[in-house]
């Protein structure tokens, strides 16, 4: 497939390749448009992207999409099966499961994306700093990474969450963001190592050496040659990181430490539904299906992105 698109690009670009090259100089046309082209040809990845977009839009426009407010209680309508008034049924408290699933997408996607932002910032600073900052900085930062890596992930998240929940930060940004922050503060280690490794490898590539020989400034080499080439694996890692963060948050909420009712969250909905699971599985089914669908979508998109961004893999 990769070869396919490569020949096609070459064919369409054949008449005046040099001219095109000059016209688009400075814009990252080759890599990105080529990658996009390959991505679109990957059907599973496109399906994943579309599902993510739909869930994302539902999350953003939750107040307009959801039939009822997520905390509204319908007295006497407890753990009902799906019906015309409640498409997904109701939970133990008599709340509409569809509305809660839609509002739950806000927290789940929110956690997934926010956590990746936090991870990216820390990982770029630590990984980039280690690769470019000289021997002392490298040693110091990587030893620090070793220490954070030694902590057991999930349990460290719980400890951090408890610490942050008692601080002023929590009072300003709310308990929700504290969960995001805790997951992010623990999860950056692998990405930092990836960025450092990638940058160190790039430093010895022919084109970076050539750029150095041509007298390009350090900033230019980093911004122009090293960062764009580090970006692909980072994008892929972040895409796979989203569902992993969502799972972590759902796990915390499931054991009652993350997002708590009345706020809607897929993890706490599953916990809540488990109380009545012998009577009806519906209150668990929909948030679990939403989690699985989101996970698979990001997985497919991640696979697609990896194949698209790295033409060397088959």
């Amino acid at each position, binding site marked *: 497939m990769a070869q396919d698109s490569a020949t096609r690009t070459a064919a369409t670009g054949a008449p005046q390749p040099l001219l095109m090259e000059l016209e688009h100089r400075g814009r990252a046309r080759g890599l990105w448009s080529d990658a996009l082209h390959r991505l679109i040809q990957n059907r599973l990845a496109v399906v994943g992207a579309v599902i993510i977009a739909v869930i994302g839009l539902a999350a953003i426009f939750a107040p307009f999409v959801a039939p009822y407010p997520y905390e509204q209680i319908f007295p006497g309508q407890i753990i009902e099966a799906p019906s015309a008034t409640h498409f997904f049924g109701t939970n133990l408290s008599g709340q509409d499961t569809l509305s809660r699933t839609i509002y739950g997408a806000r927290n789940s996607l929110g956690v997934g994306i926010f956590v990746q932002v936090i991870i990216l910032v820390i990982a770029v600073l630590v990984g980039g700093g280690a690769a470019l900052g000289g021997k002392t900085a490298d040693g110091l930062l990587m030893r620090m990474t070793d220490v954070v890596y030694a902590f057991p992930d999930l349990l460290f998240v*719980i400890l951090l969450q408890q610490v942050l929940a008692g601080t002023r930060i929590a009072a300003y940004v709310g308990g929700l963001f504290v969960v995001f922050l805790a997951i992010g503060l623990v999860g950056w280690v692998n990405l930092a190592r990836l960025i450092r490794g990638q940058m160190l490898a790039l430093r010895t590539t022919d084109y970076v050496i050539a750029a150095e020989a041509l007298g390009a400034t350090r900033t230019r080499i980093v911004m122009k040659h090293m960062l764009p080439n580090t970006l692909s694996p980072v994008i892929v890692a972040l895409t796979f990181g989203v569902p992993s963060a969502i799972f972590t948050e759902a796990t915390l909420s499931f054991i009652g430490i993350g997002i708590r009712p009345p706020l809607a969250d897929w993890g706490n909905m599953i916990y809540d539904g488990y109380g009545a699971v012998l009577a009806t599985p519906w209150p668990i089914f929909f948030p679990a299906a939403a989690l699985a669908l989101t996970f*698979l979508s990001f997985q497919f998109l991640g696979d697609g992105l990896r194949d698209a961004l790295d033409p060397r893999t088959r």
Partner: protein
Amino acid sequence: MTGYFVRRVLWIVPILFLVTVITFALMHSVKGGPFQAGESKSSDAARQALAAKYHLDEPVWKQYGYYMRGLLQGDLGPDLQQRGNSVNDILKQTYKPTVELGVFTTIYAVVVGVGLGILAASKRNTIVDYFSVGFATIGASMPNFVLGIMLVLLFAVKFRFFPPTGWIESAGWRAVVLPVISLGSLPAAYIARITRASMLDVMNQDYVRTARAKGLRERMIVFRHIVRNALIPVLTLIGPIAAGLLTGSFVIEYFFAIPGIGRAYVDAILGRDYPMIMATTLLYAFVVVIANLLVDFLYAVVDPRIRYS
């Protein structure tokens, strides 16, 4: 190379030391303490007496000093939740189920993952491949507790094959099955994906073509030339996965009421049981560090091309 590993082993000591410092500082900055007003009927005087007994009324750095003095003599301190018990006692009571769960789950994940991966790659683009990949993808698309709920509903409630809760001591060997599958399916799927990709990668190597050209039997080619080399990247995954399973099993321990360390740890954090938090963090950090060291060592052993400096 020997020098490298000696350095790595020595480096464990400062890492674990820093882990104690960070954990101590973090847990003491959590709001509230183990003996809080309103939580129990004990009077203020009794609470103060308790705090004084466990040095909780002294500055944190002094408490750290007391703790480290005990730690270096192998004393992990008193358990503040079950007073009268030491943390050493609690760990002795709870380590077994966690270790068993971790070991069984790792075995399950590796066997199923590698098996599916090899099967899928050697029957590439056939129904077997699609089935294996599909199974691995769907099996991994749920958090372990959701899979646990489904398995319990199906195999413990509807068909009474397995007990819904408990562990070997209380519910017999059958109690192992559902927790292990719940916890191990995600890593199994991950291992299967990596194995498959690695197999396909190796299949295109020149020495495989040579083996085929020599007229070797297909089975010989697959197991002698492909699988052996394809498993090297998988091997490096087993360390972090085993460490993750040992330290990340607390949700499954909660869900299946398994009396292990993971549960005790979460209870300790929520109950501000400082000595217990310290002990478990340190123990888990030790597991993680050793697992990673072992992986790097094994890596160098099985792949002579790897050279550390």
